[in-house]
């Protein structure tokens, strides 16, 4: 069967460096760090005392108080970012066939804070369970997609993908596939996360996954730098409206770019460590290129997973060299996590948005906080260190890798490609 073409017609972002797509993009190209001391709880006894929190967010500006209190922060972020994307897409909500619009969302964890609060509340009591009736529907990782569907009466395919830090690349690929296979004409997709909580920080700290650079949070996320010491936890949401090409053209929609392809693979190696040679990372990029019908030489840029962990950045850099060969040195590679921190299940969505906007504006956001080369990483690769670079971007790939060894990669390209 002939697959339908899929384009991006709406974007929404709620991130540690900007609460709208415009603010997010300005933060990205200006090399803004979202890291700061944690404000949500007392970090006195925590090894890491900073994170990339969303700032200046007042949920009641967007969602009725009664509804908002039944949503975990991760779901509030989902709704707010989706609102921006749907509005940006300019969908005619009266005329559109609501049965042909779906929602596929991604979240790595779901309502961690809700879970934590309810269990702490139980532990502080006398053993009698007094759980809030909204505990489960607030906490479950699929509720965000449900809430978005109810807000807009979108009755098409609806579910949530969970693959840790690859979750919202998986949701994007699924949404892309459902549209190109003809199961829907438009999809709201993306991901959200809100794990800057006692349990989230404590848990990731226990794994030695987080940077502990407490004396200088804004330079803590330093992908590919020799002195990187772990990732910086971020939170927020990214939302995209994907649409079948003819459907978008027929209504005169503004089209950002086309989704060229999606790749998926597994490391099948270790629960948290990457394959040392980047095998899964290499395969996922090759799978993505094959799906898009493009060659490595067609690619202008790669938005890395690049979390600023000692092992991960090496493995991914090796994989890029294997996939692209000499062309690796012509690419603009970047890790926007240097600015946003690691949004876990929302990372894929906000990084796809960064990639899409780099095509739109012809600017590659930088990998900030580069001070010293790491001899284990090929310094001939252009990692777009420290300052944004101008480049006519036509094809960009965005990598995400999740605990469990899940890898997902999406390719976006200029419409005329």
């Amino acid at each position: 069967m002939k697959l339908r073409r899929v384009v991006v017609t709406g974007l929404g972002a709620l991130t540690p460096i900007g609460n709208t797509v415009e603010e997010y993009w300005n933060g990205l190209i200006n090399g803004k760090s979202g890291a700061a001391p944690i404000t949500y709880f007392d970090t006195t006894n925590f090894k890491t005392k900073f994170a990339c929190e969303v700032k200046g967010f007042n949920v009641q500006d967007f969602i009725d108080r009664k509804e908002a209190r039944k949503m975990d922060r991760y779901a509030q972020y989902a709704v707010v970012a989706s609102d921006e994307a749907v509005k940006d897409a300019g969908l005619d909500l009266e005329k559109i066939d609501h049965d042909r619009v779906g929602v596929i969302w991604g979240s790595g964890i779901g309502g961690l804070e809700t879970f934590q609060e309810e269990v702490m509340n139980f532990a502080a009591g006398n053993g009698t369970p007094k759980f809030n009736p909204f505990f489960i529907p607030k906490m479950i990782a699929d509720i965000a997609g449900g809430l978005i569907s109810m807000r807009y009466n979108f009755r098409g395919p609806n579910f949530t993908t969970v693959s840790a830090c690859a979750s919202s690349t998986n949701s994007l690929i699924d949404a892309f596939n459902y549209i190109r296979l003809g199961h829907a004409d438009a999809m709201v997709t993306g991901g959200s996360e809100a794990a800057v909580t006692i349990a989230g920080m404590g848990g990731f700290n226990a794994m030695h996954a987080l940077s502990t650079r407490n004396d200088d949070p804004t330079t803590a996320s330093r992908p590919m730098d020799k002195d990187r010491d772990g990732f910086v936890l971020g939170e927020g949401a990214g939302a995209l409206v994907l649409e079948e090409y003819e459907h978008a053209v027929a209504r005169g929609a503004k089209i950002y770019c086309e989704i060229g392809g999606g790749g998926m693979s597994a490391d099948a190696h270790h629960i948290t460590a990457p394959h040392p040679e980047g095998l899964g990372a290499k395969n996922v990029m090759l799978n993505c290129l094959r799906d898009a019908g493009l060659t490595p030489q067609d690619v202008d840029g790669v938005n890395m997973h690049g979390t600023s962990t000692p092992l991960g950045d090496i493995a991914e850099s090796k994989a890029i060299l294997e996939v692209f060969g000499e062309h690796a040195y012509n690419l603009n590679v970047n890790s926007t996590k240097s600015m946003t921190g690691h949004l876990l299940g929302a990372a894929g969505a906000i990084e796809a948005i960064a990639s899409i906007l780099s095509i739109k504006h012809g600017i590659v956001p930088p990998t900030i906080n580069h001070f010293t080369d790491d001899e284990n990483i090929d310094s001939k690769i252009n990692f777009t260190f420290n300052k944004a670079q101008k480049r006519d971007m036509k094809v960009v790939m965005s990598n995400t890798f999740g605990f469990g060894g899940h890898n997902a990669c999406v390719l976006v390209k200029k419409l005329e490609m």
Partner: protein
Amino acid sequence: MSDIASRVKAIIVDKLGVDENEVVAEASFTNDLGADSLDTVELIMEFEKEFDIQIPDDQAENISTVGQAISYIEEAKK
């Protein structure tokens, strides 16, 4: 208005996000105040916490209006 009645009404206004004027004795949580089944369970739990009482499930089923809640709690606190 008794102290209990005003505290009950305050909880309902807070949890259901309704206007204070709507919270009259005969108002039904579900039919008049927009509560769903989970909202109703949450209200009962809030009453238990606020007034330090236990409301067994079989009796909670009979509390569906503002007035019924106030009467039940007043009786329980005697």
